[in-house]
């Protein structure tokens, strides 16, 4: 184990003393207590663990924590636990865009990156952007609609 690894999470500086190869997911959830980021497959295949690294969506389960050193990480807590919540969160609730809801944090982070590109993405563009995310409950159409609503500036 080397020295502490320092980076920023949701605007706060953090420092963790863990093996540099530890997956970022476990550091976020277990060392930093940010458990809104989900463990889905742990293999980079489902998108449930998506967070933003310098604004870019990555799967935290197969990203080693050292990749975050000196960078900015943004997690679902930055969208959901602020007042008022991010318009994407409002839109998801307004559409009731979920059943179990497990897939949502990862999808919301992906959507945040998509919205940051500006413009009003079409249904097809939103769907294509979400193709690395799995939803088993079949909430897809509502999720796409919610993101479209948020992108067009509409809210709850």
């Amino acid at each position, binding site marked *: 184990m080397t020295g502490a690894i320092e980076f920023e999470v949701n605007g706060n500086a953090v420092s963790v003393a863990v093996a540099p190869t530890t997956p970022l997911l476990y550091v976020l959830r277990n060392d930093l207590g940010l458990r809104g980021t989900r463990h889905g497959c742990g293999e980079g295949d489902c998108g449930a663990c998506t967070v933003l690294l310098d604004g870019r969506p990555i799967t935290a389960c197969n990203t080693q924590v050292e990749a975050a050193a000196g960078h900015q990480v943004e997690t679902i807590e930055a969208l959901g636990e602020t007042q008022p919540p991010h318009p994407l969160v409002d839109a998801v609730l307004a559409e009731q865009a979920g059943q*179990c809801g497990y897939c949502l944090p990862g999808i919301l982070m992906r959507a945040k990156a998509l919205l940051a590109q500006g413009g009003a993405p079409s249904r097809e563009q939103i769907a294509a952007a979400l193709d690395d995310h799995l939803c088993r409950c*079949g*909430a*897809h159409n509502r999720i796409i609609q919610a993101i479209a609503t948020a992108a067009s500036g509409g809210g709850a």
Partner: protein
Amino acid sequence: MIDIASSPSLDDNPNCADWFDLSYEGKVTLRTAKVEIGQGILTALVQIAADEMDIHPDRFEVLSGHTRLGPLEAQTASSLSLEVTGRAIRLAASALRHLLASEAATLLQAVPDDVAFVDGTVHVGGRETPLTSWTLAQTVDLNVPVMAHTAPKAMTERCVVGTSLPRQDLPAKAVTAAFIQDLSLDGMMHGRVLQPPSLSARITHFDGEAMESRFPNVQIVQNGSFLGVIAAREDVAIRAIAAADQCTTWDAGATVAADLVEAIGTTEAAEEVVLHKADSPNDSGAAIDPTIGATLSMQTRRTYIAHASIAPSCAVATWRDGELEVYSHTQAPHGLRDALGIVFGIDPVKHITVIHTPGAGTYGHSGQDDVALDAALLARTVPGSPVRVLWSRADDFAAAPLGAAMVVCAQATLDANGRMAAFSIVSNSQPHARRPGQDGAAGMTAAERLEPPFAAHCCDDVPLVRGGGAERNATPLYAIPNIRVAKRIVKDLPVRTSAFRGLGAPANVFTLEALMDDAAAYAGVDPIAYRLDHLEDERAKAVIERAAAMAGWPGRESDDEALGVGFAQYKNRSAYSAVIVRVRLDETIRVTHAWAAVDAGEIINPDGLHNQVEGGIIQATSLTLKEAVTFDGDRITTHGWSDYPILKFSEVPQIAVELIDQSHLPPLGAGETSVAPTVAAIGNAVCRALGARICTLPITRDAIVAAIG
């Protein structure tokens, strides 16, 4: 108070106090053993109670699936929660309101009929009084039978039921640590368990010394062929179990048929006739003279299906002074409690508490209970410390019960006018339910690997009185004079199957609705008209007609696109659904559109029902086009999502749903209603687009190539 039907859930919990607690001012605790699995049930139950009690839904808190503090009820399954628990809650809430109202009338010297509640505050003759439901509840004895006091409101007086109240649990689930996978208890340790390469494989050698030298701070737990690790850090537990895997040698396990589905098709298991209806008492049903019309037959196959929940199974267990506490996303908290009692040889009621905590969506009996035993076995070695076990994605594919593979043979005899005169169906299948604790068996995989082992759990299938397992929805709702329904349950295959959404319904409706389409084609009649002509049930006709209108049936036909229809009343007694899909065949097989009309009786929450129907259509599309668990012998070779693709965002059809309002009729469960009709509709649309019938599920490109060469 006459003629008010009770609910099975009231048999074990007859009193108002079993269901409600008003000890906290301004709050109502509603207790149920039913659990939220993403279907919105808890919000719907609150709506029912809020209406009867005239208390705002926001004041309700639901205590769900707690074996010590909540009522004993059956598992959350088969779309029964609204029909059974919803009814119990309505009756109990009504009784509670009447008890409080008569106490208020006494205290205020008013006529009970003049007493009204406005969000829990008592009004008499339109004027507010200082009394509230909560002050009254302090003195009224609520430990009295619901059925002696209940008089639910007329349908027209309900105002929360029938509205799309947003899900109360969704905000937390969308953005916070709301799941069992996120649970973090003081001093919690992380456990992982080695899953055997196949159900029957046993450990022949484990190099414990090598493990200990590599992971000195990890505790290794072995009992027979149950092997697990406990570590303070989750990432260390994951590395340790991977190392343990390398240090373990397993035997080859059982020898099995090369093709499991084929083995189901050719089983010699006894045929059990579950229904036999003949147009005259002496008629065998098969005695129609085939020469007057035609005999059409069909054999279909469905492979094994995985629950494939987005989150693998998880549980957290703690032993303290001989008492076991388990947090679990089980659908059957009481069943799990009792099954754990069998394994540990302790009185479950006295010494075990199971507390439901939501997991990601599962659609029946997944690894939810097995992982709870894993956690309890590991936790027993570190008394006082909670141990969390999370299966890996590969474990979840390999070790969780699967949806049963089926081979269905059906035959229709048409009379000289092309009408169906006789229908006969035999569904071959492994059993569709083996929940823990059932038949007094432990029923959790780890129990079978302990030394000494608990016997492997094999059980009978679900009988038709409970909706049937292999024969679920095998009986056509169509008015056919002679109907014979049978099943063959295969019990000798080393594959663990249990309840998956719809049980036998998707395979049976796929078959039966295909035969309806083939019969219509033979008779030269439009498939919708043919169905309507064979239906007497007006509700069934109404959903089919509505779906046809929505889809613009028969639609434009082209070389590679077509519409197809599927219909069923779930379990022949629950909600009715007609689904029409448009399929496009090019490089891939795409379902581009789906239209569904649903009659679920009284609609408690329209948007919630809508969401369930949509979700069912999407999941059924995924099942029909993509999903199959693969095997090498009895080893499951499906390890990750790349081996088990499910429908992606860009592949999801556009969906339109219409709900037929029947608020004067009892609510019917609708969690599964759209699934089987969607599978059937896709099968029929592919047949119309292709000009050939594909009889295997999933309907992949390979299956089409195999069928048409």
